[in-house]
């Protein structure tokens, strides 16, 4: 408890007669991504906005690094907490660089340091500084805008990042990409992230811990695995969906069931690459497919068990190649191992 970065202690927020948040107790650990999720009106955004005091709680208190968050003026508090919202809210009259530099400027950093930091952050979020520095928000795509939004939130290197449905307005492909990039960025910056979404897929992908809210109450606060395998009640079960077992497979890296390709002799899983290469003893089905010049369904090495199952089904549950970024086969999914792992699941994976 004491090493938690953010602690909600009996926090409630009442609007008129409606309790938006009802006696919430929640502690968020340093460096973790905590996803707040629930149906519309469950109080997740209110909960998030109480952390940086855009909303003041009606009862209870919120500790940040052990200190009540109302111990300092709200503006001072907010400058130490990154904030990313769905609408992005880039200042349209400022350039990308000026947008990213807003908080450092509020904090009175010298110009040279701001400039340095801006370059660093644009590179971090995958925007070439030379190209984007002097552009204006209206010249950017939605995905680029939100990248700038993330860079802006990270500008003063705050230990905490609040993200309110940051990818909600993006098209599915861009959303997926930004989620992956966020994971990459998080690996570098190791912030404590509080992330609001209503998309379970997004929650499972990003969260270290998921807090499921309903009518302002915390229903379950757990790791994604435990949420899927051990839903606290019927509501959670319904909320995660009937395919929760498949979703759970999506949390397990494919490498867990992969049989590595022997001798590291990588082969290309396409008709062209296979010609003339030494033949190991891969599964018959895939081998036949390779020989016939057709491409069997493959799994990327970065994929999940869910991807592996999908590809295996496409291959008639035959052996399925696992490929790296260049299309080299790095291993195989075998039917027996796959089925064995699947059969053993609920018992094994329920452990935290």
């Amino acid at each position, binding site marked *: 408890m004491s090493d938690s970065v953010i602690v909600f202690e009996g926090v409630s927020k009442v609007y008129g007669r409606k309790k938006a948040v009802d006696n919430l107790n929640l502690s968020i650990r340093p460096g973790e991504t905590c996803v707040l999720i629930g149906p519309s009106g469950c109080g997740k955004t209110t909960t998030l906005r109480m952390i*940086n005091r*855009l909303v003041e709680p009606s009862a209870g208190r919120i500790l940040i690094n052990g200190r009540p968050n109302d111990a300092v003026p*709200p*503006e*001072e*508090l*907010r*400058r*130490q907490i990154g*904030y990313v*919202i*769905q*609408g*992005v*809210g*880039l*200042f*349209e*009259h*400022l*350039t990308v660089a000026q947008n990213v530099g*807003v*908080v450092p400027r*509020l904090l009175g950093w010298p110009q040279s340091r701001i400039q340095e930091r801006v370059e660093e952050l644009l590179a971090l979020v995958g925007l070439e500084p030379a190209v984007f520095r002097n552009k*204006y*928000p*209206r*010249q950017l795509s939605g995905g680029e805008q939100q990248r700038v*939004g993330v860079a*802006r*939130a990270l500008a003063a290197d705050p230990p905490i990042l*609040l993200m309110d449905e940051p990818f909600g307005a993006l098209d599915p492909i861009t959303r997926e990409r930004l989620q992956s990039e966020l994971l990459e960025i998080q690996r570098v910056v190791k912030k404590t992230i509080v992330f609001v979404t209503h998309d379970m897929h997004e929650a499972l992908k990003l969260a270290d811990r998921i807090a499921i809210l309903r009518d302002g109450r915390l229903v379950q606060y757990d790791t994604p695995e435990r949420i899927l395998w051990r839903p606290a009640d019927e509501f959670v079960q319904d909320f995660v969906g009937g395919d929760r077992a498949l979703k759970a497979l999506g949390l397990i890296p494919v490498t867990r069931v992969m049989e590595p390709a022997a001798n590291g002799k990588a082969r290309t899983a396409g008709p062209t690459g296979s010609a003339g290469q030494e033949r190991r003893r891969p599964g018959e089905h895939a081998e036949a497919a390779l020989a016939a010049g057709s491409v069997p369904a493959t799994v990327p090495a970065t994929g999940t068990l869910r991807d592996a199952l999908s590809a295996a089904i496409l291959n008639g549950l035959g052996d399925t190649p696992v490929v790296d970024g260049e299309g080299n086969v790095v291993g195989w999914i075998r039917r027996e191992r796959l089925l064995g792992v699947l059969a053993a699941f609920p018992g094994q994976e329920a452990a935290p």
Partner: protein
Amino acid sequence: MRIVRLVGSAVTAIVLLGVFFRLEGLHARILLAVWPQYPDALPFQGGSMWQMGVRTVQLVLLSTFLCTAIGIPLGIIATRPRYRDEWAPVVNSLVNAGQTIPSLAIVALALPLLGFGFVPALVAMVLYGLLPVLRNTAVALENVDRAQLDAGRGMGMTPWQLLWMVELPHSIPVILAGIRTSAVLNVGVAVIAGLIGAGGFGAAIVHGIDLRVPPLVWYGAVPTALLAIILDFFLRRLEEILTPRGLRLGTKRP
């Protein structure tokens, strides 16, 4: 760069007007040639075109300046969260009521209350021209993108910083349009103010109507129209130049 273009536009406007006003002899000759039946109409006894022009420009610039100096702060105050609930309806009804009153009535009311001359005319013009500035300021501030306000607040801007760094830059085009409306309106009121002895082109026009002398009316009306057009042109340029670059991209403003 911007400042150069700004000064360039201002100089062009002033030179155009100055030259036109200085050519009063030519104007008089043309008007007398068109209306030979009024040989004594010009030169106007109330003052030269230059003097009337200077007086009219004084009235218009001074009143527009005062409208801006009063209207923008009032618009800002009316839209602050603390006052918005009480003030927004007041501003609204004031603006609506104000626009239904003819400028002639405003000037007529100024006479018994404030008397004759420059200052009463100025007061009437400020009262009348205040409304477009106030309305546009309030509307512009009310319409600043919520996401940007939320982001600014969430990033730790104080209310003043939010106003200065986000709300006002976004409102510049609409506020300037209000100032332009007010200025052009004030040219018209300045003429009517001739009725209460404010001088300027209004004097020639009022006199000309009184005496039923068309060339005298034209002698005041043409430079007044020119003043309004040039002022409008200059203030449009000002809007273009002062609108932040990032806001001019993409969407076009009508």
